[in-house]
């Protein structure tokens, strides 16, 4: 093995998490392997090229335990789903580092379908995953909701999986309970350094940056602040390829403004940090909250997302399926969902985005940008320039805060809802450093909403969590 590369001083500890995996991870061999991988399988390259050419990319969500089952699913998504990037979602056991349990399961089930909710990337042999990559012959992104994705990333990148969903804040907040910010940032820092090592070999690894968004009506400023911080944390470790999420929240003008504002903010802060060679692309993720149980309504919802993304100038869609409200989607339904989106993408492809001349878009853009900058600046101040340290302090103080977080690091004082046009507004700012004029805007908007309904604020907050799934973005019969 070569000398420990920069930022990977913990490598021995990581590899010790599961020796049978570690044995397969020889950096010299890997370097040779990944450089020889064809460019069309490199997520970062495909994203950068699509941004140049204007082709809009689609990526579904999927992950099965068995190799054959997973390969078959990805093949369906490739052939019938017009997918440009294929996902490999990792199972919960792997996310929680329970590799021995997975090994027992694998031993029992052999090649058949496994009772796992994703692909156990650490336990399947490296050669097997390499075969997967070359068989489906598309760029693959590892999707891993974990605060310790280090060994999984080692195995994935070494197999030619060329991108990973990232995560130091997002996965901490929404996928963990007792983990500290410092732990999550350190673990993800390792992954970012590893990604940079690949870039130095000539095979850059992409990051799909989540931001802080959750699955309720979520303010774009807070979502974007998280994305900026995650990009800065990764950029400090040398990462340069960011596909940043701006998820659908439902109000068209706000969602258009959101994508633009987040793109501009990420570019602004990267430049401010002295990074001038980053490639930032924007993802519109479909609604991430509760889905209609009815597939037909779900088709309406994801197609609407596609329109909203196209009018926002999104570079890519990452999409739930129309069976999201029911259970794990079968690959055929997943592919059909992508085709519905593709059709909308095709129709709107030649049409220009919604211009900022639209008053509503312009107003939301200003609002999101002002709030986002206020939050990020406050966090960076707390960290004295270090975004990871700043985030830790900020979560503690409530300068970063998220409603409905899974993690105990969040105070959970922020409350959000929709105004009478369905735009997301703060109902309680918690301790977020939101500028006064923005506060007034939110309060006024919510006042107008509340004036039109007999409901209590509590009832409004609750019902707004269900509104996208039920249909009416703002309940009609109030």
């Amino acid at each position: 093995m070569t000398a420990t590369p920069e930022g990977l001083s913990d490598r021995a500890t990581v590899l010790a998490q599961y020796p049978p995996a570690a044995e397969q991870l020889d950096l010299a061999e890997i370097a040779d392997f990944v450089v020889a991988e064809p460019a069309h399988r490199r997520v970062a390259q495909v994203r950068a090229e699509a941004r140049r050419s204007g082709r809009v990319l689609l990526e579904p969500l999927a992950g099965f335990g068995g190799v054959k089952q997973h390969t078959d699913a990805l093949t369906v998504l490739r052939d019938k789903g017009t997918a440009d990037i294929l996902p490999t979602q990792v199972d919960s056991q792997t996310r929680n580092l329970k590799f021995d349990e997975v090994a027992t399961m694998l031993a029992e089930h052999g090649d058949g379908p496994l009772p796992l909710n994703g692909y156990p990337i650490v336990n399947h042999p490296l050669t097997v995953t390499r075969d997967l990559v070359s068989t489906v012959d598309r760029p693959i992104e590892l999707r891993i909701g974990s605060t310790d994705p280090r060994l999984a990333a080692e195995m994935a990148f070494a197999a030619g999986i060329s991108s990973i969903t990232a995560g130091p804040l997002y996965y901490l907040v929404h996928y963990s309970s007792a983990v500290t910010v410092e732990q999550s940032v350190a673990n993800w820092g390792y992954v970012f350094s590893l990604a940079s090592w690949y870039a130095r070999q000539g095979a850059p690894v992409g990051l799909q940056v989540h931001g802080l968004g959750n699955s309720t009506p979520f303010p774009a400023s807070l979502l974007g602040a998280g994305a900026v911080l995650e990009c800065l944390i990764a950029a400090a470790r040398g990462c340069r390829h960011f596909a940043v999420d701006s998820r659908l929240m439902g109000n068209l003008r706000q969602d258009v403004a959101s994508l633009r504002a987040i793109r501009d903010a990420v570019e602004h802060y990267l430049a401010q940090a002295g990074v001038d060679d980053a490639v930032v692309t924007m993802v519109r993720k479909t609604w991430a909250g509760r889905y209609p149980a009815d597939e037909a309504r779900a088709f309406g919802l994801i197609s609407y997302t596609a329109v909203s993304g196209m009018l926002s100038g999104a570079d890519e869609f990452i999409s739930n399926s129309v069976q999201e409200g029911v259970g794990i989607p079968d690959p055929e339904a997943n592919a059909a969902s992508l085709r519905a989106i593709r059709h909308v993408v095709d129709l709107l492809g030649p049409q220009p985005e919604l211009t900022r001349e639209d008053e509503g878009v312009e107003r939301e853009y200003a609002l999101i940008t002002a709030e986002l900058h206020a939050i990020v600046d406050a966090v960076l101040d707390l960290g004295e320039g270090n975004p990871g340290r700043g985030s830790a302090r900020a979560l503690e103080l409530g300068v970063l805060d998220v409603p409905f977080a899974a993690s105990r690091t969040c105070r959970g004082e922020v409350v959000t809802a929709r105004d009478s046009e369905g735009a997301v507004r703060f109902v309680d700012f918690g301790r977020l450093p939101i500028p006064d004029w923005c506060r007034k805007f939110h309060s006024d908007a919510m006042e107008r909403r509340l004036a039109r309904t007999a409901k209590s604020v509590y009832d409004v907050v609750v019902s707004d969590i269900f509104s996208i799934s039920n249909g009416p973005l703002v309940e009609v019969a109030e």
Partner: protein
Amino acid sequence: MGTVVTGAAGDDVHVIGIRLVEMGLRHAGHDVVSLGALVAPAEFVDAARESKADAVFASSLNGHAQFSLAGLRDALVEAGMGHVLLYGGGQLTIGRPPWEEVVALFVDRLGFDRIYDSDVPIEQVLSDLEQDLALRGESR
């Protein structure tokens, strides 16, 4: 009014639903001990004992409920908390099998007092709880 221990069970991080239930419980005047995400059976039991809880509300959405909630009733009994009301909710199964099957599994076999489909209005849960608490009050 009672004391309710809440949490998302096992390896489950879906907390939005159970947090809404908590909001409803507090709104209705109950005391809530909220354990959040990724709660192991032992944690439920400890919290129930310490808070002298009347009920445990266990949520599970990720499809693993039948494993992560399996030992909960027994653990409560063992800890001398067998009388505690045990409610379950979220998406207790993978996909949507007939509801009778879900009831057979969680109520008949795993010892839950009540379980709920994800479409349940929170008001329904609250009124069921009130009724159950009243009944317990009488029978003690």
